[in-house]
């Protein structure tokens, strides 16, 4: 692969995540976009191309089926706007598309905006309904999203001696971090006992081991590094960016070689991103990580896939509190998906905004000290699609 032009994030914006009954889909787009544009100190008209990430228009408010749902609320016309959909990695994929467009010289300023509006519907009318009523009428019927990851949890508990306490401690940690984040949905820390005794969803995952679906939007404005105006901008550089589709929707559950102990997609995406950024020992070279903790087991499993520890040793990281705020490598200091909630299309971009804030030194109470380099990770589908982005200041 050729050496690539560095890309800089110059503007960031993120809405509050949660049940935003008072904000429409269009309000969320305007909120996030205007924050980012003002942060970058540019006018909307300078944007040369934009990417909109919304994963599930059909179970939301039927908005986000095309790029025009970004253009309309902003009156951002006469430029290319594309909708990106790649399950939970949609946001990260929007960033990837914007980066590639800048590198190709299609535009000089690019916007990637993720937005999802899921809470206008009743909970059982959205994600559960999608799993029950749509899709293949035979294969995987009976699974919810939680269940597809719970089968990993049960196998890992069997293979690696991980306990339910280890899994739930991820949730305890992230809920504590979330209590420090004013943009998070849940701003309350919880005890191990509360997590373990909450309503069972798909054993061993309880309701507090599962992220809530929420409304929310996040936006980043990017330019080529050479165009950064140091007087005006506090740039964050994208040093590595990997995205990989490594299995299908049904295949993981019908493939005899799949061990349910790791996500090949994460390993592949991480390898691409590490190579680009020149990282060889991630645990020593990265200062903070945002991991896709849609279910607490996924964060635990991802420690291994990102190469932070050896196979089977993830439990030691959580037991040793290495990933807590102030630990060796803080993970999900934003509170993660478990506290912020998961507006699917927005999550990847929200993570980039979070890491950027730390690298700028603007993260307030939860600031990771002397943060130089951060990583965001998303996993989509049943562990099929993963993205890894490396950011530096």
């Amino acid at each position: 692969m050729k050496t690539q032009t560095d890309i800089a994030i110059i503007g960031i914006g993120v809405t509050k995540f949660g049940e935003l009954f008072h904000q429409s889909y269009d309000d969320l787009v305007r909120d996030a976009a205007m924050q980012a544009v003002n942060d970058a100190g540019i006018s909307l008209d300078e944007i040369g191309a934009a990417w909109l990430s919304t994963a599930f228009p059909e179970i939301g408010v039927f908005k986000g089926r095309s790029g025009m749902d970004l253009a309309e609320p902003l009156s951002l016309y006469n430029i290319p706007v594309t909708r990106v959909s790649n399950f939970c990695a949609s946001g990260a994929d929007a960033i990837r598309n914007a980066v590639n467009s800048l590198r190709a010289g299609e535009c000089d300023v690019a916007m990637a905006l993720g937005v999802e509006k899921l809470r206008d519907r009743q909970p059982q009318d959205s994600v559960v309904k999608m799993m029950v009523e749509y899709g293949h009428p035979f294969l995987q019927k009976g699974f919810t999203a939680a269940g597809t990851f719970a089968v990993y949890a049960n196998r890992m508990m069997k293979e690696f001696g991980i306990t339910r306490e280890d899994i739930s401690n991820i949730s305890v940690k992230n809920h504590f971090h979330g209590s420090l984040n004013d943009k998070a949905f849940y701003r309350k820390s919880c005890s191990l006992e509360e997590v373990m005794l909450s309503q069972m969803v798909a054993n061993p995952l309880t309701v507090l081991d599962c992220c809530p679906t929420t409304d929310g939007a996040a936006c980043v404005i990017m330019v080529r590094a050479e165009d950064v105006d140091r007087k005006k901008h506090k740039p964050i550089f994208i040093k590595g960016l990997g995205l990989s589709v490594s299995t299908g929707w049904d295949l993981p559950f019908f493939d005899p070689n799949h061990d349910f102990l790791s996500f090949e997609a994460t390993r592949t995406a991480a390898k691409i991103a590490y190579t680009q950024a020149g990282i060889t020992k991630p645990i020593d070279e990265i200062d903070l990580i945002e991991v896709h903790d849609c279910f607490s087991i996924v964060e635990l499993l991802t420690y291994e896939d990102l190469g932070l520890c050896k196979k089977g040793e993830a439990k030691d990281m959580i037991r040793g509190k290495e990933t807590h705020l102030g630990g060796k490598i803080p993970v999900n200091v934003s509170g993660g998906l478990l506290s912020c909630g998961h507006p699917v299309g927005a999550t990847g971009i929200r993570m980039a905004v979070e890491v950027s804030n730390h690298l700028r030194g603007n993260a307030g109470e939860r600031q990771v000290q002397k943060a130089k380099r951060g990583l965001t990770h998303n996993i989509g589908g049943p562990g099929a699609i993963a993205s890894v982005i490396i950011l530096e200041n």
Partner: protein
Amino acid sequence: MSYINAYGIALPQFRIEDNMLHPKAKKGGMKSVCFSDEDIITLAFEAAQNCYENFQFPISKFKPEIDGIFFATSTPVFHNRYHASFLADLINLPQEILALDFTNSYRSGTDALLLANDLIGSGKYKNILVVASDVGFPDIGKELSTPFGHAACAILLNNEKGIAEITNSKSFSSSLAEEFQYKKSNIQYDPRFSRDAGFKNNITTSLNNFVSNPKSFDAVILNSLFSKMAGGIFVKAGFEENQFAKDSLISNLGNTGTVHPLLLLVNEIESGKKSILLADYANGTNFFEIKINSTSKHKSLQEQVNNYELIKCYQDYLLLHKAGNFNSIKYKTKDMFSSEMMQEREKETLLYLKGIKCEACGTIYYLKSARCKNCKCTTFSDVQLSRNGTVYSYTNEHYSPASFPPITMAVIDLEGGGRMTVQQTDTKYPENNKLEIGSKVKLVLRKMIENDAKPNYFWKAKQL
């Protein structure tokens, strides 16, 4: 004249005690009840499978040689689109066969047996599979006054010497129906009239006509709604009390309708009787003289009768009335889109469990692909996947809508290769569910979700 060469039984996992159905019922009686995802088709399918698995017919020999399939049930054919041809397709029989339905009378089980026997005797047909299956729920509160009990039985008849030989058979007709359905509710004629003018009259005449030497039978099976009062008629015809086969099934399973006479026959075959008279009365009588050639080594009926789980309360029984899997109090789904096209198009995979095997690395896949994920080889051969397997991982889905939550999803490594992920079935009570990693399971065909035209049948795992 023909021979019984194999038989198969399918009984549901669950039973309900009579005194749960009605407080005044006698203690000890039970009725067999289908789980929410079973129907006459899944039971009939299981009985047919049981038939050739028990008697170890190689499938290749068994299937092409069957030239007739008779399906007996008291559920009207067009009510639910269940029929012999559909069953034949499910068990992957060739299209050049005679597929006939026998319905509308409790006698249709033996009607099918009688016609199969005559067709084989005529020499035109060689192997006929007779399958009787009955699943009906009486009106609420009428469970004890209506014949009720769910079961299926498959019998393979042919002209090669086998377990038993049907040496003689005859049918006598009677116009008086003892019970029939009108606009979905059961109507009974004045029982005295249908009993005296129908049953007594028909049995007495036909018995004198058919039986020349009453003492030659060591088991006499009489299947009828009035069988309790038939003793006198038989004694008058020259039979003795000790010849009567005791109907031990009725207290364990209930009256299983069209299946009942066939189950009673199998019961006598398994208990080692040598010479049997089978009389089945409903709108007339079917008589059979059956000689047993060898004692059956299989006790498949006895095993299944003794292996069951009790329904714990009447409310659970009421839940079973509602067909389909994905309805619960919290969540009501609309009908699934009819996937008849998909079921037909992907029949090889969905119904017959055909997988593909990578020619290079030998990995067996259930799902089709252009290339092997493991080694990227592009050539595959077809393989038949096994119905038995071991649980690799699992989870209990508490939020997936179900009549009896949670739904357990099991990732299963199949014997001989291949992996599938399916729901576990026959788990009404989570506290009784012992499934864990390493558990042995068997795939059974069940309803996935109800739709208005046709249920979707797919595999689920049953713990062994």
